[in-house]
């Protein structure tokens, strides 16, 4: 992949305390239940899944369309841990979710030692269909429920019941913040540079002494860990009850679109891309009902959304392959220089 971006020092470190204060302090006071459950929680979780895929695709250059499969592995692991070991803390079952997804991810990554490109896409598609089939076919995973639908137990952390929207938001925010910090660490560490070396030219990376196979496997495992935790959060704090079809191929594509639009090889981009993907359909529905007031029926609107999304994907790939993250950076740069012009 020819997307090059060197790891940058965190230049906006001063903004972090403000952001943290806003996310942990101000939003819980201002937000209402609709914002928590319909926008903020899915936004954070999709951003986390985006980080997972971005580490694999944007940084290490291995395209995957099996993101949703890893998310569902995470969700069902967390569910089974919570169901069968009720004394286990919630966050520990999330960690277990990540670890089991990482384990499967490492196995899925094995073919990447030998094959690459589209052929690898097919390997990840295999996982996507296989995992969906396993969870639908073997009811043990869903506690022998006939329809495969499971409901998660009440969420409690340290004895506090956090099942209300605010509590679920706080759980999600805490997990996502911690893992995002870790991801920034990975991206700027030696490991992150190895990922990028493998992405830019794996033969050259091997020549300068990077263990390409181990690096690829590690990328798969770490990426799957993130997706697994994101899946557990999606099942526990967003959906509440779920069946295997909550993580079908469409979800995988959704996460892929997040990193295309947000920006490959960027951590911030995942948050921008996820916000865009979530808010655009809502904005389009609002706009349609505002302008045409019921003239456009739901089915037609779905088609227009598809057209807009497809067009945006193509436009971003052509005009701004580094996505919204790059736009954000360059507009900041321009704002910093204003009123002087950038030549």
């Amino acid at each position: 992949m020819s997307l090059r971006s060197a790891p940058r020092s965190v230049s906006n470190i001063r903004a972090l305390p403000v952001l943290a204060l806003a996310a942990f302090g101000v939003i819980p006071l201002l937000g209402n239940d609709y914002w928590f459950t319909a926008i903020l929680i899915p936004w954070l979780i999709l951003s986390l899944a985006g980080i997972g895929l971005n580490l694999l695709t944007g940084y290490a250059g291995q395209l995957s369309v099996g993101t949703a499969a890893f998310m569902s592995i995470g969700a069902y692991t967390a569910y089974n841990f919570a169901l069968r070991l009720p004394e286990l803390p919630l966050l520990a079952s999330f960690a277990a979710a990540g670890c089991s997804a990482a384990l499967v991810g490492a196995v899925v990554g094995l073919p990447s030692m030998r094959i690459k490109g589209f052929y690898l896409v097919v390997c990840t598609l295999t996982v996507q269909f296989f995992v969906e089939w396993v969870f639908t076919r073997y009811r043990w995973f869903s506690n022998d429920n006939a329809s495969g639908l499971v409901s998660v137990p009440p969420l409690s952390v340290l004895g506090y019941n956090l099942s209300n929207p605010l509590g679920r938001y706080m759980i999600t925010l805490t997990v996502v913040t911690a893992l995002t910090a870790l991801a920034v660490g990975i991206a700027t560490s030696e490991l992150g540079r190895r990922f990028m070396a493998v992405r830019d030219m794996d033969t050259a990376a091997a020549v300068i002494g990077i263990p390409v196979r181990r690096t690829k496997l590690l990328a798969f495992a770490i990426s799957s860990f993130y997706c697994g935790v994101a899946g557990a959060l999606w099942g526990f704090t967003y959906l509440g009850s779920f069946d295997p079809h909550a993580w079908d191929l469409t979800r995988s594509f959704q996460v892929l679109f997040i990193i295309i639009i947000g920006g490959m090889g960027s951590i911030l981009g995942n948050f921008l891309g996820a916000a865009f993907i979530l808010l655009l359909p809502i904005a389009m529905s609002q706009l349609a009902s505002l302008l045409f007031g019921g003239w456009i029926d739901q089915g037609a609107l779905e088609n227009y959304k598809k057209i807009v999304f497809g067009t945006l994907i193509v436009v971003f790939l052509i005009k701004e392959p580094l996505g919204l993250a790059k736009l954000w950076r360059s507009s900041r740069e321009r704002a910093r220089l204003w009123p002087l012009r950038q030549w």
Partner: protein
Amino acid sequence: MELLIETLVGGLLAGIMYSLVALGFVLIYKASGVFNFAQGAMVLFAALTFVCLVERGFSFALAFGASLLAMCVVAVAIERFVLRHLVNRSPVTLFMATLGVSYVLEGVAQAIWGADVHGLELGIDDIPVPVLGMRLSRFDLFASLIAGLLVTVLSLAATKTRIGLSLRAVADDPLAALSVGVRLPAIWRTVWSLAGLVGLIAGLLWGARSGVQFSLTLVVLKAMPVLIIGGFDSIGGAIMGGLIVGAAEKLAEAELGPIIGGGIENWFPYLLAVGFLMLRPSGLFGDRAIERV
């Protein structure tokens, strides 16, 4: 035993249907190095256009011509608005662009023609006919005939005609082809139109089988293992891959299904394909890529 053979032959015939979809991929991959995920959307677009025109009173030939024309317009638009701007970008970027294209095509097709399920009658009944003591579906036999015809015509066109020669030149070495005066954009338009024609035929056959509806786009997912097994750049490989996938899928469902549970046809071909990949990383008939640093 007899049942086994009948299952096998039935699978082989069904596999031909997968090959038909895979053919469109191979054409485009050979000439432009694009792994065209939008092929499924093109199948839907073509079939939906055809069936809606027929329902509006067009004759078969007229509707076929009009749909083909529509596919050519799509091909020209894709070249003009997508491919032209993505020259020299990585194959994975091109793949993701076709994902976007498939969304647009699906949206446009359904915005114009609606999302209803349309029945399609080609005049061939899906009745079993006895062949060599086996009972085979007449429709499947017809489909394999069409596929065989299509492959023959395409191979002949590739080897005997001038445009076929330039297609092969581009597939072999785009830069060298450019330098001797082959027009790349024109080739792309031709190839994408051809893929549209293949998609139209595949769409008609698949549509007659299962109704013209949104799920037609999913045949793209059936074609993927076929391509892996046959190799992305081999027309003969697409046929062989289809046969292997079709037969293996039916046999697995019949033999393995009762043991580990039914409904495995969604992923079994993929597993098979990955198995093949581990042995031969560029497919049975694919060209082995040589990389330079």
